[in-house]
C-alpha cells in the first residue's frame, strides 16, 4: 500500500515537472514552417507530373527488354492543331478585271505546352503569431573535455500565458498559435521558360507537298 502511494506521488510530481518545464518554442514554430515547405514541394511535384504526363508522349528508347538494363525514355511534345486564316489579294483576270480578296486557311501544329497557362503557385507569405509565456530558458553549451568553451544558443520553453484584466491576473486554460498563409504566383523556373520560348519562337510556316499529306 505504501509503495503504491509513493508511486502515485512520484507520477504526479513528474507530470507537474513536465508542465512547468513548458513546451519547446522551437518545435512550435517549426511545425507550420515545415507544413508550408511540404505544401510547396507537393504542389511543385504535381505540376511536374502533369507537365510530363499530359504535355509529352513518352517512348521507350531501349531496344532490349532486359529488366536489369536501365530504361531510357524519349519525350515528344504533344501537338495540337491551330488554324490560321488570312486574306490575300488576288490580281484581276482578263475576265474579272477587279482584284478580289480571298480568304485562305492553313492548319499548323503547336505543342500543347505553349497553350496551357502555366504559373508557379507557391506560398509567398507565412505569418506565425504565438501567444505563450516564456517559462524557462536553457543555455546550450559546447564542451571540450569537460571544459565549457562557448555558448551554443538558447533553448526557450513556453507555457499558457496570463491574461491581465485591471489589477487582477487570470490564468488561461489555453494558448494561441495562429498561422496565416498567402499563396501567390512566383516566376516559372528558368529551364521551363527556356523550353517554352524555344517552342514559341520556332513556329514557322513550311510548305508540305500534297503528296506527302
Amino acid at each position, binding site marked *: 500500500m505504501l509503495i503504491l502511494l509513493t508511486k502515485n506521488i512520484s507520477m504526479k510530481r513528474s507530470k507537474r515537472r513536465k508542465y512547468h518545464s513548458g513546451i519547446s518554442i522551437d518545435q512550435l514554430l517549426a*511545425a507550420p514552417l515545415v507544413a508550408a515547405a511540404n*505544401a510547396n514541394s507537393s*504542389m511543385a511535384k*504535381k505540376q511536374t507530373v*502533369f507537365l510530363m504526363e499530359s504535355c509529352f508522349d513518352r517512348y521507350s528508347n531501349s531496344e532490349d527488354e532486359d529488366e536489369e538494363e536501365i530504361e531510357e525514355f524519349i519525350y515528344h511534345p504533344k501537338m495540337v492543331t491551330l*488554324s490560321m486564316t488570312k486574306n490575300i489579294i488576288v490580281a484581276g483576270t482578263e475576265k474579272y478585271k477587279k482584284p478580289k480578296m480571298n480568304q485562305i486557311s492553313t492548319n499548323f501544329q503547336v505543342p*500543347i505546352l*505553349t497553350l496551357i497557362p502555366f504559373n508557379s503557385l507557391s506560398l509567398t507569405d507565412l505569418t506565425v503569431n504565438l501567444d505563450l509565456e516564456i517559462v524557462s530558458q536553457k543555455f546550450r553549451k559546447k564542451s571540450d573535455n569537460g571544459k565549457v568553451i562557448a555558448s551554443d544558443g538558447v533553448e526557450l520553453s513556453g507555457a499558457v500565458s496570463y491574461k491581465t484584466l485591471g489589477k487582477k491576473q487570470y490564468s488561461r486554460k489555453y494558448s494561441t498559435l495562429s498561422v496565416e498563409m498567402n499563396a501567390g504566383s512566383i516566376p516559372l523556373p528558368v529551364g521551363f521558360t527556356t523550353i517554352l520560348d524555344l517552342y*514559341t519562337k520556332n513556329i514557322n510556316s513550311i510548305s508540305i507537298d500534297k503528296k506527302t499529306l
Partner: protein
Amino acid sequence: MSEQYIACPNCKNNILFDVNALLSGASFACSKCNAKIKLANESKETVSKSIEEFNSIKTNALKQQSHDKI
C-alpha cells in the same frame, strides 16, 4: 494570371491569346498582318482535358494548403 502569347506563323509577331476563349471558339488576330488564329475542332477535346486537369491540380493544391493551416 500572366498574359499568353504565341508567335504568328505568318509574320512572327506575338499574338496575345486566352486559352479559355480559344476553347470557346474565339479567334485572335495578329496586330501586324491581321492573320487570325483559332483552335481547330479536332484539338478542342485534348486542350480542354489538359486545362481541366491542370485546374484541378491547382485547386487541390490550394485545398491541401488550407488544410495545413493550424
